[in-house]
């Protein structure tokens, strides 16, 4: 059980804040998904977690303790791009990891390579992108680490092997270990992650349990009989995150209390009021899409 606490993390590269005032607690014994558009700061956050990048400011604690060399023995990392040596065979990489990490299990690595159908005698040079990913996954999961940090762990893998990787992650969580992963394949995060955080431009823009986010965040939509209607102050409701209006149709993104807000639309005379569930992709897109012109429309009380 390893809780990771990130407090006010900031990493500045030249004029760019890759990570900006990022505060997050990642619980142990679970799968945690880090989402964000390209360049959001996910990889930089991972590098700070691993001590590969020195934070400009802020703190990272593992079970309340700062990162020390001994902690790294407990963390396995799969970077987004291959860090394998082209001129070495897969088996030689396994041997190298056996020497480097006391808890590394070569037998487990070979077993996982069999699952991924990779012959350990092959040289890395001849492997495809997906096969290199699979080799790094096999090595990481043979480390017997307490914490696995996986940056796009399924990139280049076929659907069967993608599912293998998700199963491995679930298995680690079931054993009490922590898995933190990033992926642009939101369907995978939606399936395997218990909690997520969404980053955008280095900042945390959304976090929570996937199931709670889905349970709370809804679109409430109503159609008014006339373009003139009274719906005063709806955009000030703390649970209304966004208001879109197209003539007679009002569409609200609500973060809680969808039923009460739907009732408010009905009371204001809207017909066809409906509440639409959102999947994680919808929730993600709303979290990272900048406010559009329609977002700022304030529906003023109208006297017809």
């Amino acid at each position: 059980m390893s809780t990771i606490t990130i407090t006010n993390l900031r990493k500045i590269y030249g004029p760019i804040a890759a990570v900006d005032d990022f505060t997050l607690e990642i619980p142990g014994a679970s799968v945690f998904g880090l989402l964000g558009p390209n360049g959001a700061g996910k990889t930089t956050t991972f590098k700070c977690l691993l001590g590969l990048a020195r934070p400009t400011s802020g703190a990272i604690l593992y079970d309340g303790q700062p990162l020390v060399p001994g902690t790294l023995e407990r963390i396995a990392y799969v970077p987004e791009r291959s860090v394998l040596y082209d001129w070495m065979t897969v088996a030689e990489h396994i041997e190298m990891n056996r020497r480097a990490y006391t808890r590394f299990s070569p037998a487990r690595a070979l077993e996982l390579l069999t699952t991924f159908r990779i012959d350990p005698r092959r040289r890395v040079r001849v492997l495809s992108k997906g096969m290199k990913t699979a080799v790094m996954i096999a090595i990481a999961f043979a480390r017997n680490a307490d914490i696995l940090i996986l940056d796009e762990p399924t990139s280049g893998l076929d659907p069967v092997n993608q599912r293998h990787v998700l199963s491995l992650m679930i298995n680690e969580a079931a054993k009490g270990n922590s898995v933190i992963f990033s992926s642009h394949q939101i369907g995978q995060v939606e399936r395997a992650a218990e909690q997520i955080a969404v980053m955008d431009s280095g900042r945390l823009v959304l976090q929570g349990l996937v199931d709670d986010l889905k349970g709370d965040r809804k679109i409430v939509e109503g159609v008014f009989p006339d373009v003139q209607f009274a719906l005063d102050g709806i955009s000030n409701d703390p649970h209304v995150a966004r208001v879109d209006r197209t003539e007679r149709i009002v569409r609200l993104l609500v973060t809680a209390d969808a039923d009460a807000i739907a009732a408010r639309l009905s009371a204001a005379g809207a017909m066809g009021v409906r509440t639409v569930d959102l999947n994680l992709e919808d929730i993600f897109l709303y979290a990272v899409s900048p406010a559009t012109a329609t977002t700022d429309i304030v529906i003023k009380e109208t006297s017809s």
Partner: protein
Amino acid sequence: MPAVLTVDPRSGVPIYLQIIEQIKRSIALGVLQSGEQLPTVKQLAIDLTVNPNTVARAYRELEREDVIETAPGRGSFVRSNGVTESPKVAAEIAGDALDLALREAKSVGLERGDVRRLFEDALARWFGQQ
């Protein structure tokens, strides 16, 4: 445990609610019998490829509703009253579906009389004329 338990992670319905709904349905249909053992949290998590804490949340909720019981070290079981309760569970499932339909009907502006006529027609279609 029936292999029919599946989740659709792409749905907007939280995964733990999908698990709860399907276990209740299995009990209502008699696919899961009184006293029958459920898979462990870990096993079901691996089978469905979903987070173990998500399965644990579904089980906790089912315990709270007295649908299942968990004996420490032995696992989770359908409660002995689960079978006698099955008509209740069936009514609950149908009630939820009806609720949704009525809400839709109301929101598109139908009146009580319209809805009653629609309901009578549907009743005749599925259950025959009285």
